[in-house]
Each structure stands twice: as C-alpha cells, then as structure tokens.
C-alpha cells in the first residue's frame, strides 16, 4: 500500500468517524426470523432508510441478523443486543419480556403489535395426484404428510394448531346445521383428526424451511406450512400446488423494540419509527410481494391489492383461547399433540 492510499484511507476514516460523532450516521440492530428476510433486505430497510433521511437528515445503518424465531429470542435473552425483534411467534417476544428486556406493553400498538400475516395452507404435488381437498384427506391411509416438529419450529406449532382448530370446526359441521356439539365431543373429534393425520407424518424436520426442502426432495404427498412459504415458490415454477383449506388458522407475526437495548444505544426514536414503518402501506406491500397477507385482513379491513380470498371458516388464536391456553392444551406434558405421538408410538 502506497503512502497516498494510506493517507486516503486515514482521511476516509476521519470523515467517517466524524460523521458518526456529529450524529449523522446512526445504527439500528434488527433481529428477525428468517422467512421475511428478503422483504426486509430488498425493500423495507432501504425504504425506511430513505424515509428517515428525508425526515431527519440522518443516515441509519441497519445491521440485521436472521435465524429461527426461537433461536433469535434465546440469543437476545443471552446477550445479543438487538434493538428491534421481528419474530414469528408472540411467545418468543413474551420470553424476551419475561427476561426483563422489553418493559413496555408491545401489544398496545396498531394491530396489537403484529406486522405480518398469513394462513396455514397445504402444498401438494403438481396435478394433485392424491386428490387432496381438505384436512380429512390428510388422514387417508397411504397419504404421506410433512410438517416440522412443534418442539423446534414455531411454524409447526401453527400447523398443529390449524389441524386441531380445523377439527373443532369440522365437528360443528358434522353435528349438522344449527346444532352445536358439546365442547368435549368437539375436542375429542379434533384430537382424533390430529392423531389420524400425525399417523401419516413421515418426517418431522427442524424447521419449516427444512420441511420444504424435504418435500422438494420428493418425500411426502402433502406439506402443511405457511401459505407465504409456498406462494413465492409456486410463482417461481416449482412443481407443486397450493391448497388453502376452508378451515384454517390466521397467522400473525409480531415485532417490538427492546427497551433495555434501545435506551443503552440511544436509538429509541429510530426503533419506534422502524416498528411504525412496518405497519405502513409500503412495508405491507413488500410483505405481500413475498406471499404474506396484508395485516388486518382478518379484521375485515379490505386492503389494497388483497387478491387472496379469505377462507370461509378462518379462525384465530384468540378464538381458541389464546396462545397460553392452546399451547398447554396441545403441547404441554398432557397435551393433545404430546399424547398423540406417545400413543402412536405405543401402537394405540
């Protein structure tokens, strides 16, 4: 390296650190789950940077990391000092809250702190050779089903919740018009549907992404996953088809700023603006582009460009009693899913 280039480098460094000192370039650290990475990197972050520059004249550098939702939550609890967390499950944000890092009530924001939405859907092979239409078809003998393990994948928790909730809806349907089945019989039917489908599950991968990889390797007839995992792939001509069952669950993914970290980094203003920006039309359009549904669609607010029809018997986590109730009911030590896998292994 010549003396002149060394000098140039030194000069650049001085200018750079000067601009940092002058408060012109500021930094925001984002911890996200991996699925919406493309939307953030390609559209949302650059758009936010432009908007912030326009509003304040400051440059924002966004350092982002993506990974499994639960792993990100654990990293943050363990010391990863992200300013904003964008995760797939409310429960993961709750864990960060429990660790004392989020001190505000993140659920009070617009859409209760949720920034992206989707539904649980089914992917089948091109031409739908097994004639899959709804959940009952997944329970037919000879149909191989894929979804990841709910112990390791937030996506799989949504999948199992969708099956169980669909079972409750189907029980109503079976009871006949106008009649309501007793809660016990509806739950019994939902558990039996879950068990009959779980019996056909061939592989339980670590994550939703891996499950899709396994499906693309040729394993299984049906994959249960987020609609937004399937849509972009089908758009890019992968040989499978999307089926949205009429009974399925509305998925919402939360985002929140992490109080302890934003205060230490003095970036509360940016972090608040960033979370608010995620609700903007521009950010929502970026999510939709990636196969997500516009947030608030379930609440009946028609959004621009909402081309995806809503399933007729859509239900939400709140309809099932909230995450706390449903995760004990399904995934607790005596939960429906837990006892289902244990019973199946014992040949019951």
């Amino acid at each position: 390296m010549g003396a002149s280039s060394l000098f140039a480098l030194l000069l650049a460094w001085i200018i750079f650190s000067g601009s940092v000192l002058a408060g012109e370039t500021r930094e925001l650290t984002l911890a996200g789950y991996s699925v919406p990475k493309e939307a953030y990197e390609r559209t949302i972050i650059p758009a936010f940077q432009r908007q912030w520059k326009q509003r304040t004249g400051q440059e924002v550098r966004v350092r982002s990391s993506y990974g499994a939702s639960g792993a990100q939550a654990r990293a943050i609890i363990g010391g990863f000092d992200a300013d904003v967390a964008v995760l797939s499950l409310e429960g993961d944000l709750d864990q960060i809250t429990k660790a004392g890092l989020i001190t505000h009530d993140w659920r009070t924001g617009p859409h209760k702190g949720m920034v992206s939405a989707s539904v649980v859907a089914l992917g089948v092979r091109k031409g739908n050779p097994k004639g899959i239409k709804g959940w009952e078809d997944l329970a037919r003998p000879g149909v191989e089903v894929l979804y990841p393990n709910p112990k390791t994948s937030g996506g799989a928790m949504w999948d199992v919740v969708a099956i169980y909730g669909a079972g409750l809806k189907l029980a109503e349907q079976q009871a006949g018009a106008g009649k309501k089945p007793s809660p016990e019989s509806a739950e019994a039917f939902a558990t039996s549907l879950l068990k009959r489908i779980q019996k056909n599950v061939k592989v339980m991968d670590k994550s939703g992404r891996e499950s899709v990889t396994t499906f693309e390797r040729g394993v299984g007839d049906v994959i249960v996953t987020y609609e937004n995992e399937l849509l972009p792939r089908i758009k890019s001509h992968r040989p499978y088809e999307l089926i949205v069952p009429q009974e399925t669950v509305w998925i919402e993914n939360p985002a929140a700023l992490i109080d302890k970290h934003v205060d230490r980094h003095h970036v509360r203003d940016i972090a608040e603006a960033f979370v608010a920006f995620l609700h903007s039309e521009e950010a929502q359009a970026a999510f939709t582009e990636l196969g997500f549904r516009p947030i608030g669609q379930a609440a009946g607010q028609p959004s621009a460009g909402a081309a995806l029809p809503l399933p007729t018997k859509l239900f939400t986590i709140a309809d099932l009693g909230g995450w706390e109730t449903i995760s004990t009911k399904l995934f607790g030590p005596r939960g429906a899913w837990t006892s289902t896998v244990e019973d199946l292994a014992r040949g019951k």
Partner: protein
Amino acid sequence: MTTHTLLQLALRSAAVGYVALLILFPLVAIAHQSFVGGIDHFIQDISTPQASSALILTLESAFITTVINAIFGTLSAIVLVRYEFPGRWFLNALVDLPFAIPTLVTGLMIAAIYGPTTILGTWLQQGGVSVLYDKPGIVLAMLFVTMPFTIRSLQPVLMELERDQEEAAFSLGASPWTTFWKVTVPSVLPGLLTGVFLTFVRALGEFGSIVIVAGNIPMKTQVASVYVYGEIESYNPQGATSVSVFILLISFLVLVLLERLTRPPGERMPPWLRWPKRPLSMIRPSEIG
C-alpha cells in the same frame, strides 16, 4: 528447585489447565445445571416417555454402528495396511474425509443417495425397505461420521506388528484362524478397543447428519441429540441438559473402561482402575493344529 523440575511443573500445569479449561469446566457447568433441581428432577427428566425412548434408540443405534464399524473397519484396516493394490493411496486419503465434512452436509449426502427420487431410493422403496427417515438411516449416518475411528486406530498397530510373529506361529503349525485369533488380535487389541469405544461414544452424540436423515418422530425415529435440541428450542433447558448429562455419563464410563482396558499394567492409576498382574496369554499346544 532445578530448572528441570520447574519446566516439568510448568508443562504439567499447562496440560492440566488446557484440559480443565476446554473440557472439565464446561462439563461441570452443564452437570451443575442439570442437577440444580435435584437428583429426582434429573431422573424425572430422563424418564419421560419421549426422553427415555430417544435414549434407548440412541444407545441401540450406536451399538449396532459400533459392531458394524468394528468388523468392517478391521477388515478395511488390514486391507489398507497389508495389501498393495492400485488406488490404495487414494482410498487411504479418503478415510479421513468424514472428519472434515460438516455433519449437516453428511446428512445431505446420504439423503441425496437414498432419497425417494434417486435410483437407489426408488429401488429400495419398491422392495419395501425404508432406509431414509427410519432407523437404518440413523445407523447409516452414525457409520459415516465414525468410519475413520477403527481404521485409523488399527492402522499404526498393524504396521508395527511384526509379520514374523505371525509367521512363527504359522510355521509352528497354527492354522491361519488360530494365528489371527491368538497372535494378531491380542497384539492389535488396544488399537481395536480404542477405535470401537470412540465409535460408540461419537455415535451417541451425533446430531447434524441424523437430524436430516432420520424421521425425527418422537418415540419412533428421534435420537437423544435431536430430542435435546427440541427441548432447548421449546424453552426447557433443564430437560435438555439432563438428557445430555446422561449421555455424557455413559460416554465417560465407556472412556474410563477404555482407559482401563488399554493401559499397560504398570501405569499409576487409582486401585479400582488397576489391572491385576497376570501373565501374557500364550498359545496352548492343544490349539496348534
């Protein structure tokens, strides 16, 4: 103190410090974590239906892997040491490769061969044999990652073994089988045992490749390491560490046993680990055919 003893002391504490820092302290930390809730909690954690069946499946698969690896590893080592053939150098270089490949990639490789769309996979499926996403897949993954152990621990002892001992037995009239069993095997036993035990211990902890090639269905095709991962992911670190510590305890016992079996009788060891003095085994005249 002379400089010599000072140097000795420094070297010793460096060795002890290195092992303690890298292995002992983390081990103590994780053991502490799993016993925080008391021994009852530990037993409860490892005896839940899902944990205990994952442990049983792991031990079972590791055992099968060890037996297969011992047989074919020994054969491969003998062939690689004793027989000159074209391409031997290449095969020899290939043996260590499983150590270098990230185990996740190992899993992908196995899936790429036995997957349902491949020739082999289709053929197996037609025959009604399930390898991938079933128990044979687990053993296959364990075999792949542990393959070098037996071969690499046997090779040096086989090379050192003087051919003339075998030739002497042979010329005294021992059959090839007796020679192999009474001369070759005892001489290479420490190497073989090292390979076998390391295989077993390494197979117990394998995660990366198994998580890809096994079905991971609880109580059916889920091994202990995958179970541990699941418990960590679902915010149950206590349950995860208990199962890990159980696996570690078994590994440690196996390694202590190995230490006892392979150390020469003169080694300074705690009394419970010491060999009773005994004469070297001899070929009895009756065994000479």
